[in-house]
């Protein structure tokens, strides 16, 4: 994940997190949260068909009741340690804005879903400045929890990073 899409604000990432309900899930032992309104459903891990010529974090496509949906591995995209799939591994199907208007399905592989939490404004802190040591492009804030913190991320920004405009096709295959 080196190239930066022109659609993404470069420095401090997306708008800060709003209070509301969040779905929290685990990626490589750390807890992340996304607004629950963006989540459509959570399904068990199913066979994923890999798609050639895509960056490594794009695991491929699945058949969700007849729709072909892209699946992204956020652990790879965020540069986390990727362990083998296990029985708690599942797929969170979200919907994000489509370039042509409307929404498009967008699924991510996670190491297990935790819970839905309600966060008040006081629970949310702005994303910290790591001085460039950590990629904070997708982070909207940090949520205080009973134990530790969970990182709130913006799936829209994550998905936009995979937009068709990111880079030209690697070969002359584009029509």
């Amino acid at each position, binding site marked *: 994940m080196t190239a930066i899409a022109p659609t993404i604000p470069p420095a401090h990432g997306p708008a800060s997190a709003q209070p509301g309900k969040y779905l929290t899930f685990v990626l490589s032992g750390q807890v992340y949260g996304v607004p629950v309104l963006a989540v459509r459903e959570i399904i068990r891990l199913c066979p994923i068909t890999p798609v050639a*010529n895509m960056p490594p974090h794009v695991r491929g496509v699945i058949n969700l009741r007849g729709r072909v949906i892209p699946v992204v591995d956020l652990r790879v995209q965020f540069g986390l340690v990727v362990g083998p799939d296990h029985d708690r591994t599942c797929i969170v199907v979200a919907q994000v804005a489509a370039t042509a208007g409307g929404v498009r399905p967008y699924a991510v592989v996670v190491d297990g879903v935790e819970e839905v939490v309600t966060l008040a404004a006081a629970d949310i802190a702005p994303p910290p400045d790591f001085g460039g040591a950590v990629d904070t492009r997708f982070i909207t804030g940090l949520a205080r929890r009973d134990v530790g913190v969970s990182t709130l991320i913006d799936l829209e920004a994550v998905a936009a990073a995979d937009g068709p405009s990111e880079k030209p096709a690697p070969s002359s295959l584009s029509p």
Partner: protein
Amino acid sequence: MPPPPEPASDAVRSLLRRIGLELAFLDATAPGAAGTLAELLPSLDETFAGASAPADLVAAVATARSWLALPSADFASRLGQWHPWMEEAVTAWERSGVLPDWPAGLPPLSAQTSPPPPAAGSPVTTGRTAPARDLPTQDVTVLPAGWEPELMRLFCAEAAELLQDIEQGVLVLETAPTDAETLATVFRAFHTLKGNAAVMKLVVLQRLTHELESLLDAARRGSRVLDRDAIDAVLSGADIVAQYVAEANSQLDGRETGRTIPLALPAVIDRVHAILSSPAAAAAPLAPPPGTVPLPATTPRASVAVLPPPASSPTPVNTGPDSGSRLSPPEPSAPAASAQAAAAPAASVPAAPGPAAPARPAAVSTGSVRVDTTRLDGLLDLVGELVIAQSMVVQAASSGDEHLTRSLAQLRGITTDLQRTAMAMRMVPIRGAFQKMGRLVRDVAVQLGKEIRLIVEGEETELDRTVIEEISDPLVHMVRNAADHAIEPPDVREAAGKPRTGTIILRAFHQGGFVIVQVSDDGRGLDPARIRAKAVERGIVPADAVLDTRDTLELIFAPGFSTAEQISDLSGRGVGLDVVQRNVERIRGKVEVESVPGAGTMFTIFMPLTLAIIEGLVVSVGGQRFVIPTLAVRESFRPKAEALATVHGRGELVAVRGQRLPMMRLGQHLGIEGAQADPTRGIVVVLEAGNDRRCILVDELVGKQEVVIKPLGEMFTGRTPFAGAAILGDGRVGLILDTIPLVRLGRRPHTETAA
């Protein structure tokens, strides 16, 4: 002045009553409030025409119709004075008395906007001053205040259909201007358009269609024959409506809402007026109303082959006994005759009711339902899923239970039928795409002074509407090419011993799971030598290339190739056939060309029946399965060791029927591990795209399957070698190879051609 016949009198009374009611409820502040009145006034006109009403009554209706264009408030106040006068005047007419004086508060009577009523003695009314008209173009707000998207869409869809009817009909009228049935169809189409426009409160369209309707009405009733001028006027009117609808559609889709567009509205309206008030029209009263008894005195010339009314006919041909009864061609103004005519029709009292009844046909019900295409697609998707889910159940339930097996077989029968029915719902006849061509050929012929006949065959051939959309542009290109370049000017044709009129044949038919569309012409044909020279000059092929005739002809599809010496404004900008080929390939079809120099050219387009489903060859590579569209597959076989060769240590070749073709290992190309390394234990699939061929090596063939094509979604667009995805029999996703770039890999630069 003779009193009106009873039925006409009743009809007039009832119309006036309705107009009175409408007036009472007219909301003068609402734009387009005059809608219903715009309907009623012409009816009144027609009733008068059928009943030989006094000239001033007719003129009064015409005058009232001309006010329709006014702002609602003015219109309402004028009509408020007009209505009582009409009541009085009709009473006077019934009693054969003298008509009351025209109200002083109203502008003088004018017959300008009226279709010249045949029996109305219009010489009296002509010559009155017409109100001044607007400028040649007018900025028009496309979506009126308070429009409803649903209704507007419906209006646009229906208007598009009606426009097609109109265009089609007008082209027929060009050769057979008195064809009653066609006249009626075109008239009805305008009439319906007008009605719809009124409902939508599109005052501008309503006015325009009203004028055109008047013109056609005059033609329909025989007071005017549509000459080229009139036909052009109708066509340009239809064009304006089309422009309007196109703009409305794009605004409905959320682009530039509220924009106004300039329309040549006043120009067309003026033109129609000019036509209607030209001498031919003024003399028209010679034609008696339909159903009248023959007029003995008013036939200065012999009439030809017309049955019931002996209409005086200066035109030699009049088609069919049936049409003849409704129509009579115009009479060039002959003062004596028209003087007589002014009196004569009045003497003949029709026993039959006026033409009002047949003139107002109810909208014809076709017994069909309009369905949103996204719903249709959704249904098709679900049915596709059902078929797959069903096959999964069948696979899982392979127990020995006979009862279950029978039930499952029955279920399969039903799902198959369901799928077929769902597919059929997307199928529409290709007629729509073909109909445009008539107009196109006509326009090219007129512009270039050529004589061209277009023959259309198989327009009922059905194919997926998305395919039709995609094929529409290529067809336009090809037909335009044929008309513009291929067909020679009449003199040249005559000198070459061919008929002066060139022929273009447009043909569609089904053949083996494909729809084939052919465009053939009897023009000058393609000259291989010239094509070759041009291709060499443009650097498309090297000067020493060895090409057979077929290969040479195929060069015309190369990007940047155009043999037209003169770049005309119609075609020949160097983007033509390559765009055609590109578009056709996009829908997984192909184009072939055959030509005999001097005798003509034929293009054949092979297209899939539908874009939603393809027949695919399922192959596997390293445990992954891929779908290859069978249209692109020429053959497949297990290669023998001696058929393989390696060039330069890397490039692999396979001998296929005496030809060595480059071979690509699909596993390697897609970066799949575990693919079969030994070609003699794999399968070679020969792919073709146009004239190019390439072999790909896969592990094995899994089978042939019809698959529903699913888009991969925007994340993958333009980044992968796949055209889409399909759900395979086990519910997993299989990717569909995009074969064209695969075959042409590294052969031609794949820059997007500016189209």
